[in-house]
């Protein structure tokens, strides 16, 4: 039962912080709210028996990506409410569009025919061992390939960020 309450709580937090990310005026606040959202999501991961993933999630997102965000914000000196005034029309249309997307998505998901898991329930799939098996056996190729991705991103980011020698 407590798990159910945990679900509700974490879901509420995730949604609320998510909204705060979007709605806060100050970018730094947004970043912080996003970190909180990530924690809420990490909590969900734990609930879902994906402990390793939860840890990675915190490390990668909260630890790396968000720091990067903060770093950029600081570097570019964006930590103020510098956003120009948005017209009501833009606000309304954004709300309407996102709202209708939500409605449509929910509506199309709602009538779901129950998904019947083919496997026996196994609470251990989220363990490192299982994940490692899958990742380095079945998903070895994508794993290797993602190195190309990261390399490309790295090269690219460096190339863009460095000052061009004129």
């Amino acid at each position: 039962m407590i798990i159910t309450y945990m679900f509700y709580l974490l879901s509420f937090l995730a949604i609320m912080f998510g909204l705060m990310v979007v709605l806060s005026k100050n970018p730094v606040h947004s970043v912080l709210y996003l970190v909180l959202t990530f924690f809420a999501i990490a909590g969900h991961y734990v609930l879902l028996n994906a402990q390793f993933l939860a840890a990675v999630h915190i490390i990668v997102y909260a630890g790396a990506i968000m720091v990067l965000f903060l770093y950029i914000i600081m570097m570019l000196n964006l930590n103020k409410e510098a956003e120009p005034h948005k017209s009501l029309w833009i606000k309304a249309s954004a709300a309407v569009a996102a709202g209708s997307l939500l409605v449509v998505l929910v509506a199309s998901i709602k009538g779901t025919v129950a998904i019947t898991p083919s496997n026996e329930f196994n609470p251990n799939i989220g363990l490192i061992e299982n994940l490692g098996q899958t990742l380095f056996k079945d998903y070895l190729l994508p794993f290797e390939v993602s190195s190309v991705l990261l390399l490309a991103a790295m090269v690219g980011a460096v190339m863009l960020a460095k000052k061009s020698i004129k």
Partner: protein
Amino acid sequence: MIKLVGLIPLLPLIGFVIIGLFGKKLSKSIVGLVGSGVIFGSFALALAIFFELKGGTQKEFTIDLFTWISAGKLSIPFSFLIDPLSSLFLLIITGIGFLIHLYSIGYMSHDEGFARFFAYLNLFIFFMLLLVLGSNYLIMFVGWEGVGLCSYLLIGFWFKNTAYNNAAKKAFIMNRIGDLGFLMGIILIFITFGSISYHEVFMQANSYSSGTPVLTVIALLLFVGAMGKSAQLPLYTWLPDAMAGPTPVSALIHAATMVTAGIYMIARSNILYSLSPVAMQTVAIVGACTALFAATIGLAQNDIKKVLAYSTVSQLGYMFLALGVGAYTGAVFHVMTHAFFKALLFLGAGSVIHAMGGEQDMRKMGGLKKYIPITHLTFLIGTLAIVGFPGFSGFFSKDEILAHAYENNKLLWVLGILTAAMTTFYMFRLYFLTFKGTFRGTHDQEHHLHESPKSMTIPLVILSMLAVVGGLIGIPEVLGGKHFLEEFLKPVFADSSSRIIFHLPESTEYMLMIVAVAVMATFLYSAYTVYVKNKTLPAAEGEELQPLHKLVYNKYWIDEIYETIITKPLNFISEALHKVVDNQIVDGIVNGIGYLVNWTSSTIRLAQTGNIGFYVFVMVISIVLILFTRLM
């Protein structure tokens, strides 16, 4: 001899080619010699053929030259038909044609286009011969249009003059209106009979019952063609204008030969008409009306050639009247006599004009009798012939027509008589004004007056003799004649004559003759009274006229009416089609599509705002819509 018939049209063609190609380099005498010589050759051949035909038992010869057009079951040979009718016309054409060529040597001697003139004339003779020689309708049509072309060329002979060119153009176009009818008729003939050769068509037509609608339609269509070529109401206005051409042309083409092509065509197709009473009726009525109508206009014209032109129209109407009442022989007879006397009159008029130095207005003439005696004499003979003075050729032919008209329909006869009366009046008016009284022209003109050269007078003399004796071949039986012509043409009209029986009591015939002569005499006298005794002169230009007189003087304003109801609307419609329909609507739609694309382009490009927010917004909305389709 008959095998050589191909030479008859070929000779003029050769003449045309020689003169046409080398005319500039040849001297006028050689041109004249070649030009007239080839026609004389044709005439000689035609004469030989005529006698061969007259003497022989076979009355119909077909000479195939080559297949001209063939498509499916339509096969049109280029072939000639020799029968009494065509051989008669051959004689008229080549005979009168020769005389007129001869005349032209003198008449045109001072013209720089001498060679061209002879080339055209030869070409005309060629086409005219084709017209009468053809063994099927399409060959006739070839000649038909060909003479139209030559007429165009010759009317506009003096091509620097815009008015002449307009007249030429008008002639060609009006003829084409008729030609279209003719062409439709030919096509309908083909579709009906599967052939257009006379032999085949007439044979088949014989088996149709009288009044078959398709025959009526064919007959009427052909008649439309005849109306154009033979200047019948309402397509007659080109003929008076055609007098713009040199006078020999008027004599040859617009009096003696080409304009009678319509009569030839209907006479040729007599069986089709005999089988179609409606068409006959139409022909008769149109003919009679034209005769009368043109005669009234002739009463008030002052141009010597115009009078003769209207007289021609009127006489052609007479011939159609004859055809319409079934007097085929009479019509052909009148064609022949008319060819003699009208050619004579025109040539005479030409001689007068020649003498007057180009002046054509009768108001400026008068008393020419003493200056140009030969012309005067021959002209008088012509006048007497045309008014139907007893004994002259016109008398017999007219009489035959009137008799048939009388039997057919009294009203037509009345119209005929009226026309005859007016003819008498205006012809003698012409004669009196020109030759009697005193000279009214300028001193210069008077000084210039002289008799025409031999080459002009000889044809006049020959024609005047023909105009006198030409009637002899058709003296009606009541006058003790044998009517040679009727006998001769019998094979041609055999099928028709069995259907249209002409019978009039002798007494009636006499009566009709007497009436005709009486009327003629009366009007001759009245013309004499007015123009010789009282020395009345036609009103000068610009003088106010009596309403009726004005109406007639202005030719009922028919030209103006045509201008208003046809030419102007046509131009207006064409302009409208061009400027409004074509440029605005049809092209407008096409261009409009182009503009529409541009407009759409400039409109929807605005959606590409450059603003990411907007792009994402559109994306999201599209996603919503796509997912929404899933929900439905």
